[in-house]
């Protein structure tokens, strides 16, 4: 419980610092929001008036406070490119990215855990060889190529889905799943390769541990040794690894979004950067940081639950 409180306090502090650094970074960039909005032809007076109206002339701490309050209320200002509130713009994309992330995560965990356990338990040379080959291939194929292969096979040859026809979850949940499963596969496959290897080596290492011998001396069978002794010990590094993977997916994958014509966070970020749409970029950077920090917070709590030896801060 004390660990939980401490971690929560640390989380809040980290988030505030991250928000400040994000804010500061966009202050340092040599660019003027007012000028960007009015274009090169605007007169000095017009720019100055707009600066005043946008509150750009106020002192730094005041504007940070403003930014923070806005962020807490979900107000990140207005997109310079689209003229829409940033929040509104992001809301649509979140659905896509989070849906994709969750679905890929389910695939990664659902496939790599059983496969990793099999890989660690198998004693046949053939089994080990197949796993090694499979995971190597999964890791080696570049995601964009994988995306294209999947589109070609399932979309064009087998016609299991219509390429590019994204169905929002709100409209038709099963339609959404039926489409999303394919980009999710493209995202998940390389990660599955990695996490199978990770789990395999972690399990194998734990199976050599002395406590396994003790468990056997108590009369545990192979299955009991695995499920009630080894697995929990082996999961800690895997949880940390999966957290990193999850953060990466949630930050948006430009390549996969492009291939499957999804309008997610990744593509929005790319467009906003090239369009110098700083309010949007700033919101996405803040979102990404928050995702990473929150996920690590969750992972810390899970690891601490799994392994009581983990020290308090």
């Amino acid at each position, binding site marked *: 419980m004390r660990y939980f409180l401490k971690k929560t306090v640390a989380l809040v502090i980290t988030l505030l610092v991250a928000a400040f650094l994000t804010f500061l970074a966009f202050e340092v960039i040599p660019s003027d929001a007012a000028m960007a909005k009015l274009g090169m032809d605007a007169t000095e007076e017009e720019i100055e008036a707009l600066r005043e109206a946008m509150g750009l002339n106020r002192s730094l701490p005041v504007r940070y406070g403003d930014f923070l309050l806005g962020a807490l209320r979900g107000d990140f200002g207005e997109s310079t490119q689209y003229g829409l509130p940033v929040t509104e713009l992001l809301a649509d994309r979140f659905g896509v990215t989070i849906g994709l992330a969750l679905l890929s995560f389910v695939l990664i965990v659902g496939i790599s855990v059983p496969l990793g356990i099999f890989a660690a338990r198998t004693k046949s040379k053939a089994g080990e060889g197949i796993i090694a080959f499979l995971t190597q291939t999964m890791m080696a194929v570049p995601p964009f190529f994988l995306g294209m292969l999947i589109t070609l096979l399932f979309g064009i040859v087998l016609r299991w889905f219509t390429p590019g026809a994204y169905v929002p979850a709100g409209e038709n949940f099963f339609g959404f799943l039926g489409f999303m499963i394919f980009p999710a596969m493209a995202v998940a496959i390389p990660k599955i390769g990695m996490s199978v290897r990770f789990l395999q080596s972690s399990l194998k290492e734990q199976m050599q541990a002395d406590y396994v011998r003790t468990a056997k001396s*108590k009369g545990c069978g192979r299955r009991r040794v695995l499920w009630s002794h080894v697995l929990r010990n082996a999961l800690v590094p895997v949880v940390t690894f999966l957290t990193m993977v999850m953060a990466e997916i949630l930050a948006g994958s430009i390549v996969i979004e492009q291939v499957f014509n999804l309008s997610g966070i990744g593509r929005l970020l790319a467009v906003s950067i090239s369009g110098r749409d700083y309010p949007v970029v700033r919101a996405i950077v803040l979102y990404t940081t928050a995702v990473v920090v929150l996920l690590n917070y969750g992972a810390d709590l899970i690891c601490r639950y799994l392994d009581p030896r983990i020290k308090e*801060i």
Partner: protein
Amino acid sequence: MSNENGHAKEEKNLLRIERLCVAFPGKDGKKKEVVKGVSFSLREGEILGIAGESGSGKSMTALAIMGLLPENATRDCEGIFFDGQTLCGGKENNKKFRGNRTEKQREEKVRQELSGSKMTMIFQEPLTSLNPVLTIKKQMEEPLLLHTKLSSEERERAVVSALTKAELKNAKRLLNQYPHQLSGGMRQRVMIAMAMINKPRLLICDEPTTALDAVTEREIVSLIHKLAKEQNTAVIFISHDLSVLRNLCDRVMIMKDGKTVEEGTAEQVFERPEQDYTKNLMQATVKGAKEATEQPVSETEVLSATKVSVVFRRSNGWFRVPELKQAVSEVSLSVKQGEIFGIVGESGCGKSTLLKALAGLLVHYEGTIWKKDSKIGVQMVFQDPYTSLNPAKKVGWILEEPLRLNTGLSKEEREQRVREILKETELPEEVAERHVSELSGGQRQRVAIAAALITKPELVLLDEPVSALDVTVQAQILELLLRLQREHNLTYIFVSHDMAVVRKICDRVMVMKDGRVVECGETEDLFVKPQEEYTKKLLG
């Protein structure tokens, strides 16, 4: 005493092993046998000690009985019979079922049924032998869960009573703790409680006290003895320490290179050993006082410490006052030229911390440490030669390293010096071209000593330099240390928890407890008439 009349006594025998062989796949594809046809039997309630150096196959014999051999090992035997059941082989079905899957499955089923209920085992290292992520209660109740039909409340009561029987105070509080929160002795008590919870007929102990200090060792041994006698449990007690076996066992078996060398009642083996190997083993056991040295210790001080204290801060987070742990408090000592000064105490008494402060490896101490000359060579030898030498480098490189740092010697001079030091530490010259992993424990410790002596220091600090070694090797290393000390007029500060070793080698001894000096004096005076209660307890 075993084979001829073994069959007549069969009813009484709890365990009978016939021609057990254990082999591992070797480097060149040939099998490497580590146990070569060992046979013995054990009666109900009997305590059998198995002794031998590391590599003698004693642990493998025990693991083979329990069916816990490493997966790459192969077991072959004419039979292991336990309590009326066949654990392995059996003359007639051995041939019929060899390599047969169903026979393997039957063995596995019998093993699962018996282990944890009728036969149990405890191991050398109690920290790693307990599952780090499960509570004591969870681990303790597992044998009950697997072998009995007790309800959850009954199980908890049984666990508490088993812990109490193992002389653990506050058994209830232990239930929800994890192994890392307990001390080494407590962990081994938990292991014993867990092994005894189903009142087994046979308890196998594989070096259960090797990782513990002298006081705890005695307590654990007498606990095992007490519980075994109470419940009429037969015990196989494996140890490389003959003195432990002497007081505990009814019968003793000495093993060497996978074979039984000698077997008999404890009295027979210890009082009238027949085989030379047994005699050697007993002589190797370090005992007796230090032999008088020709050269008297000079009066010049080499090092002195006045009121040295070391405090460790353990931070508990950002806003809390850090917890302070007084590892060493106000220790004063003075060491003279050519002297061997011993520091003894249980683990955690601060002796290693003090040594680090003296060596200059620890800077945040209070008090003063004075050395005769600020440029005086001080070197250190550590306990575990397996982990304290860099495994990626060849021995020659390791030995040369201090020369590369401290002197302007050329490459040829350095190599010359390496050859000299190898000769002095009685290592063959080729060792320089080997990696540490190719050497035996004794050879590794010689390398560690060579690395310490290569810069020709005056003062050598030795932190438990023989604790990780076999008795015979231990004796050799101590002899080497003594010879080097005489030849080079070195000064040693020798830290150990082994009283026998300290008595054999040191001129003066300081006893430490909880960071403080309990007693300090001439070795023989202190061993013959200890002044303090604590010293008496240490001496047993």
